[in-house]
């Protein structure tokens, strides 16, 4: 199987020839990896990473003068202000130049499965409002927020369409809804405000034969039914340290979607406890031997991880899945 075929087998709930492997290693570990391997790309090649995680394209909002003035004066940006902000063109060809080159490289040269990350409705507007104000506005300005999300979902749909035109395999919607103990907002708010727009984008992507995935940190148990209803193919991470158990996933959800998870960076990878790293890898391989999982870290590997531990972690998972 090529990397792309392997990941697609997992998404179709079939058993792949081996577990697909990936990791969010670049963000904090770049310098250490560069020193040992020459570059992050060389690290990814060394471990034959099956996926490429790409970022890029236009920003959604055109930040105008009035917005800048308010921000600089420390005034709150409220939902009615945002309704007056124009959105950028999500399909502007020149904004996709970098992505185009990267997609070509990873698909043609490495036969990888390519996914592009894009902010979901909640995360996109956190940047504009600030997360704490945004959380309040969900209750204080429900009608305006719904309209802002409706516009945003339409924008996201067009952005996703452009990515699919360029050959991207999966649209990865990044939209942190969870905290360590529960959701950040109520399931009622989620169904009323978040669900409709995410469903619109998912239906569109799947209608065009693409795949769609979700990134949400934390405990999202209360909306797993909605995640199924939206039709996400993959969910990243499945943060066991925040109450998301693999056993529960396998028992109750693995027929509906696959997960991208493996080394928990809050509890397991990066603490110098190599036995724990190995046990985590062994457990995951045992539980997901028949598919259901794309191996990954639960978030960016944190900078308290040494390069030796990172190498040990990836040597281990490769040894367990490839020999």
């Amino acid at each position, binding site marked *: 199987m090529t990397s792309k075929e392997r990941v697609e087998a997992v998404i179709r709930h079939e058993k792949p020839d081996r577990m697909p492997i990936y990791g969010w290693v670049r963000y904090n570990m770049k310098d250490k990896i560069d020193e040992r391997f020459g570059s992050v790309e060389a690290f990814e090649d060394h471990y034959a990473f099956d996926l490429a995680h790409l970022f890029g394209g236009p920003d959604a909002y055109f930040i105008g003068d009035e917005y800048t003035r308010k921000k600089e004066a420390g005034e709150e940006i409220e939902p009615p202000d945002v309704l007056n902000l124009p959105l950028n063109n999500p399909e502007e060809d020149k904004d996709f130049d970098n992505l185009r080159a990267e997609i070509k490289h990873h698909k043609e040269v490495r036969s990888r499965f390519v996914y592009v990350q894009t902010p979901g409705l909640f995360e996109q507007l956190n940047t504009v409002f600030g*997360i*704490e104000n945004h*959380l*309040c506005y*969900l*209750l*204080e300005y429900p009608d305006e927020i719904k309209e802002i999300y409706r516009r945003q979902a339409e924008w996201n749909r067009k952005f996703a369409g452009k990515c699919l035109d360029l050959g991207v395999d999966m649209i990865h919607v990044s939209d942190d809804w969870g*905290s*360590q*103990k*529960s*959701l*950040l*907002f*109520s399931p009622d*708010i989620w169904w009323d405000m978040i669900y409709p727009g995410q469903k619109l984008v998912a239906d569109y992507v799947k209608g065009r034969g693409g795949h769609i995935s979700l990134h949400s940190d934390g405990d999202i148990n209360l909306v797993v039914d909605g995640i199924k209803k939206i039709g996400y193919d993959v969910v990243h991470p499945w943060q066991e*340290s*925040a109450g998301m158990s693999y056993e529960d996933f396998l028992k109750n959800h693995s027929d509906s979607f696959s997960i991208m998870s493996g080394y928990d*960076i*809050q*509890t397991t990878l*990066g*603490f110098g406890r190599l036995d724990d790293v190995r046990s985590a890898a062994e457990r995951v391989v045992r539980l997901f031997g028949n598919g259901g999982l794309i191996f990954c870290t639960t978030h960016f590997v*944190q*900078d*308290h991880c040494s390069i030796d531990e990172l190498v040990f972690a990836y040597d281990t998972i490769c040894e367990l899945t490839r020999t």
Partner: protein
Amino acid sequence: MNDPLQQLIEAIKVGNRKIAATATQTALDSGSSGKEVLGALSEGMDDVGKRFKANEIFVPEVLVAARAMKKSMELLEPILVKSGIKPEHTLVIGTVKGDLHDIGKNLVAMMMKGANFNVIDLGTNLPAQTILDAAIEHKADLVGLSALLTTTMPAMRETVALMNKEPHPFKIIVGGAPITQDFADDIGADGFAIDAASTVELARTLVTSS
């Protein structure tokens, strides 16, 4: 429901800033004392904290409740100052060096204000020395440290170590997503709480025991 104090409690529970402000004003105008209004605020916030702890409500509901409390406090504060009513205890709180997460810390600060503590919120990304200096300057009874990242847990440890180098009159409490009771014990903190409502309970116990 004509009793303005009862209206205030309800306004806090549902996070209605406008009603909280008018009910506060009406209560004060119709002869309620500052202490009684403060009591109503605490009762409202206490209920909010309990429902949050039980996962019946979520972060937005707590935030709007706290904003309603703030509106009421703006009207109440001059009255309290005039009548010499001051919170008995002071909490100095902040997120440790390297960490920008503040939602949890803010919720803790809000609930503690609701429980009638004087709260000095220093913000995020704080060097250990800054927190220690503020604790001394404000004569803190409690110092609260928040960390959401495993990368900043060492900064929490260093901050506690710096404070514990010399004898001090305050108790140190810690919390945040990756923090556990074991870690709190290990670094020499006096208490750990899993959420904002539990922090209030912990704080009350610690200040009465000292």
